[in-house]
């Protein structure tokens, strides 16, 4: 049977995108509103512009380009750039490069939606990228951003040890840098070391003054089951309101989540609303999660337009039974945060349970497994997708490779059910039935009603497909259990199984 992670808890763990995307999303801006950017004097630019217009020489044009780029007035130097490019082979390649950049500025189209800029996973995974980053680091081993990028390239390939080593180098070079600290926290959570993630954030002198880092510290402390250290400071920042809504979006979300989960205060609702005044994509996803669990916290469709809000959109589409759209958003989410197993889990689960598209489910699972090769939930979903495509031998091989004894109870139950599915398809009906019975018993003990319903539905489906005399009883039981479950995919699967039951004529 297919399985997805339970939706009970979500925390505002920082996203870990590549450096350029993170900068473009505005997540690296200085949070201190008391400081203003230095204004660069432009008199030199004005003088050079006049000189270029008067002399028209190559030297004057090149000089003008350099200053125009630095003072941010490239568009006014485009005549000079045009002139240089018209000279063709008489120019050094670097001057051609500068001229093209200046003209690129003039011809800049309205920015593509950020959604379109997700790097293709294949490119990210390429071995060449690791080699290229290493080569660049050879020239500057103190480049913390590049060490972070290298760590990400490794984790995308599922190589945790070199990823951690690279992150250690990044932290050594820039121990108080927001980008490095947030990426490090995300990495340590990913490799199941939330304590180190928390230590890293809590020990940096930058954290106490940066709402982005405090947000991460509070979220990570919750995973590490520790008391967060900067809640009071974070609250003061929120009350003071001087950092701006965007800079404090995840902070409001993190404190709101902590209070909501503890159930000790009523201010979480206000905090969640504060978090979406000028939200990050992560705060939108968190708000969407909260809205699924807290009555009266309705999500405004407008905030789903935030760039890269794939996760939030996937969940909203799921609530509306728009399963193809869910799969599309999961695919985009997986590209955006390619090392995360969650989009692959949700994508493969929905593809099996609601779409019955097993090729797609296989693709989701395999992509998720690249960065998470030992993830038993993804291996389980891969096995289910393979069985349903008639690839029993391959499915059996995958199932045998899973160390079931180390799995969480719900995954153990799912794996037992998947073993039952395989037996059914191989003709061992009694064996399959017994395996499902074991799984159902395990899930019943666990009290996880959604997975229990899915298990019953899978069993009913197999009974119907093999035209067994137990089919109608199994379907009735599945209907009974499904009625107590609110998860929309369960009801879609129930519909599918009912239709199957009508289509398959009993012997």
């Amino acid at each position, binding site marked *: 049977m297919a399985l997805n992670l339970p939706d009970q808890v979500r925390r505002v763990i920082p996203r870990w995108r590549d*450096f350029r995307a993170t900068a473009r999303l505005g997540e690296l801006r200085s949070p*201190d509103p008391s400081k203003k950017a*230095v204004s*660069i004097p432009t008199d030199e*630019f004005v003088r050079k512009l006049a000189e270029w217009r008067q002399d028209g020489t190559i030297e004057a044009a090149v000089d003008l380009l350099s200053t125009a780029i630095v003072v*941010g007035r490239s568009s006014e130097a485009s005549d000079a750039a045009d002139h240089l490019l018209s000279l063709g082979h008489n120019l050094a390649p670097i001057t051609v490069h500068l001229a093209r950049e200046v003209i690129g500025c003039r011809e800049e189209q309205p920015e593509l939606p950020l959604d379109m800029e997700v790097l293709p996973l294949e490119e990210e995974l390429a071995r060449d990228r690791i080699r290229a980053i290493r080569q*660049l680091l050879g020239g500057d081993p103190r480049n913390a951003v590049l060490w972070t990028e290298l760590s990400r390239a490794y984790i995308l390939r599922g190589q945790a040890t070199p990823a951690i080593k690279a992150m250690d180098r990044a932290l050594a070079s820039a121990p108080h840098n927001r980008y490095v600290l947030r990426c490090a926290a995300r990495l340590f959570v990913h490799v199941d070391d939330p304590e180190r993630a928390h230590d890293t954030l809590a020990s940096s002198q930058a954290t106490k003054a940066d709402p982005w880092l405090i947000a991460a510290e509070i979220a990570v402390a919750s995973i590490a089951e520790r008391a967060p250290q900067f809640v009071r400071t974070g609250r003061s920042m929120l009350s003071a309101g001087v950092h701006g809504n965007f800079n404090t979006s995840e902070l409001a979300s993190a404190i709101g989540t902590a209070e909501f989960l503890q159930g000790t205060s009523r201010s979480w609702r206000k905090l969640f609303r504060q978090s979406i005044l000028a939200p990050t994509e992560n705060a939108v996803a968190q708000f969407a999660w909260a809205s699924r669990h807290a009555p009266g916290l309705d999500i405004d469709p407008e905030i789903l337009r935030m760039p890269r809000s794939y996760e939030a959109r996937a969940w909203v589409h799921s609530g509306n039974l728009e399963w193809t759209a869910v799969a599309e958003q999961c695919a985009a989410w997986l590209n955006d945060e390619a090392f995360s197993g969650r989009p692959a889990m949700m994508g493969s689960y929905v593809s099996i349970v609601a779409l019955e598209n097993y090729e797609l489910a296989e693709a989701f699972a395999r992509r998720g497994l690249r960065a998470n090769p030992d993830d038993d939930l993804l291996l389980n979903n891969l096995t289910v997708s393979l069985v349903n495509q008639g690839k029993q031998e391959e499915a059996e091989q995958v199932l045998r490779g899973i160390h079931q004894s180390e799995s969480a109870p719900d995954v153990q139950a799912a794996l037992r059910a998947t073993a039952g599915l395989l037996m059914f398809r191989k003709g061992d009906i009694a064996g399959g039935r017994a395996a499902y019975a074991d799984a159902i018993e395990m899930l019943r003990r666990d009290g996880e009603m959604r997975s229990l319903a899915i298990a019953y539905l899978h069993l009913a489906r197999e009974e119907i497909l093999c035209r067994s005399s137990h089919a109608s009883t199994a379907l009735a039981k599945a209907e009974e259990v499904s009625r107590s479950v609110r998860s929309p995919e369960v009801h879609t699967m129930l519909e599918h199984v009912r239709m199957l039951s009508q289509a398959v004529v009993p012997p």
Partner: protein
Amino acid sequence: MLVGVQLDGGWRVLSRAQRPSASTGGNFSVGYLVESSTGERGFLKALDFADALQSPDPAAALQLLTEAFNFERLVLDRCDDADRVVTAKTSGTARVNVAGRLEPVQYLIFELASGDVRSQVVPAKQHSAAWGLRVMHQVATGLRQLHDRGIVHQDLKPSNVLTFPNIGSKVADLGRAAYKGHSPPHDSLAFAGDPGYAPPELLYGYVDPDWNRRRVGGDLYLLGSLVAFFFSGGGAVTPMLLLALPQSLHPGHWAGDYTSVLPYVRNAFNQAMSTIEPVLPQRLRPELLRIIRELCDPDPTRRGHHRNRGNPATQYFLERYIAEFDLLARRANIVARAP
């Protein structure tokens, strides 16, 4: 205004120079061609009262102008014996008729250069590696001569490296210099020179309290950028660096301190270096790349020759680079002569 005027010392003003003095220090100044009684030609830089009088606060502009002029003359006097620095041959005051009144105009006369190095560098790198290295040797020597006298240039750029027949190159225009123990009028500015070539820390408004790190470290960056410009055919480090930096982190957008933005600037610098590297002359690539990296490190505390690093007394000394440019120029000459 001064054309045709006979000056003290037998100098006569021939014509207005094509451009100001091709320098940042040329603000509020006018350039003229002059000739001595013996036929020697020179370049005259005169205060431009007309421009100053049109400024919003003429009195303040005039005072600033005079102070800047006096400071430049002081610095030039101090460099009188520096053979790789363009120094003043003479200075004085002329009287010119301004709106029916005789007004004093202060001037400086410099030796006349045949041009600046840009014309040799930009159009498809016409110069040989040996020539380029020799120029670098001369520029680094000129810079060291300044530093030895407690002076930093602060505006070293291609247009301020002038060439002279049979002499080679010299560092010109001390209009934006700083002199240890003195406070020129431009001292209060976040940066004194051309932003197109400025060290990144100055663009971000970072003012290091240590004179050496702020001033001499800045000159080292400008020298490294000049090396990049020379051997790449026009790629100064600062614009290349900013092209590799996301817009929201640019100076002018970044509101935080320099330490916080430094990791991003370092990453952009690394990308700029990877753009410049393949266009450097192949035989000299490793040495030039290392020199540029060392001189232009975005962290001023890490600038300087690797063998001097860790010793604050010698960190910003240029001797090792001067020796390296000399050695590389000799080698390049041998290679060029080889059949």
